[in-house]
């Protein structure tokens, strides 16, 4: 059972920002997007393929262009090492036949950055492999 708290988010951020492929395939990925996990919402701010900040302290200061909102259960299955069928990909979950994830907002930005976004979301499956000590999410 994964608890998507700030420790988990920091570990995911470290994983993405130390990934060798992201700087190349994400060099034009500069945007904010919202991760909705059940009723918890986080905004991920991307700067040239690196996560600049993840925060759950949403305000006028935390703009996002598109959102990925899904029940906690969808994300828990999605982040497993070998996700079960229908939960191994955000498009699998968002496809109209299934509706286990909702893509909101300016989805053009999502499709423009789909390669880098898919790669960084897959990095979620490596979280837990890395022990993260201090908390860094800006929880004000």
């Amino acid at each position, binding site marked *: 059972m994964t608890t998507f708290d700030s420790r988990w988010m920091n570990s995911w951020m470290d994983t993405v920002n130390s990934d060798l492929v992201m700087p190349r395939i994400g060099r034009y990925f500069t945007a904010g997007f919202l991760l909705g996990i059940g009723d918890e919402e986080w905004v991920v701010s991307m700067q040239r393929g690196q996560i600049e900040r993840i925060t759950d302290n949403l305000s006028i200061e935390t703009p996002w262009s598109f959102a990925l909102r899904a029940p906690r259960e969808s994300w828990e299955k999605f982040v497993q090492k070998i996700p079960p069928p*229908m939960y191994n*990909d955000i498009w699998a979950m968002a496809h109209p036949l299934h509706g286990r994830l909702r893509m909101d907002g300016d*989805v053009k930005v999502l499709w423009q950055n*789909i390669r880098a976004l898919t790669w960084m979301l897959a990095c979620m499956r490596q979280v837990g492999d890395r022990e993260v000590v201090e908390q860094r999410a800006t929880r004000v």
Partner: protein
Amino acid sequence: MTALHEPVTGRYVYVPHGGHEYRIYYEEAGDGIPLVCLHTAGTDAREWRHQLNDADITSHYRVIAFDMPRHGKSIPPVGFEREEYRLTATFYSEFVMAFCDALELERPVVMGSSMGGNICLHIALNFEEKIRALIAIEACDHSPGWYISWLEHPHVHGGEACATSVYGLMAPQSPDEYRWETWWYYAQGGPGIFKGDLYFYSVDHDFRKLNEKITGNVPLYLMTGVYDFACTPEMTEATAQKIKGAESIIMEEIGHFPMSENPVTFKRYLMPVLETIRGVGSGGGA
């Protein structure tokens, strides 16, 4: 040392259809019962490269995989730039048969995946006397939801959007190398080709009222991988129940591109079907 060549030969055949003469590139290997393989939307015959190189198959079947017009090395018809490309069931099913006629194939087996699987239903309905058997992979009577404008948009990289949109259709258990190879094929389609194929796959293809019209005279095998979220196992099984004589086979640990994402796993399910078709098998699938 002599060069290591694959036992596969590629040729161009001229296929007359609908007032056009299409220059079609196809690859073949082996001899025996003709086994015509249809690639998925937006890609080309390389998806069947493992089967073309598999002696267990090519020792009994003449495996033939061709590139549809506009795909791979089959060039588009003259004047293609003045029309929006939308593949339809009528054109697609008739063209597959025109290709078989051009090569003078005698009652071939037709095996197709995704759109190539869906078209098998139309072929079963309209051309049953010209076909020995049909293997419809990742197929069902209705598969909506894929005709998406972002797959051909001047502000979106076509290759990356199309290829990444299907990456999740492949099972996590499939070897990384083959998943990315499949990704590569999708990344090479020309602008609007994948989307044009999906017009057939998600809009024009609606077989829900036609299932019961199939006579069942031609053996029809529906094979679907559990990770396929475009045509789920349930959708395939529901379709099979409505078609006389159809048999559904659900494949574990595999997704929407069995033949290219995991040929080894796919072979376990395919060989029994191929043996049954040529009359030696011990009955239905695994």
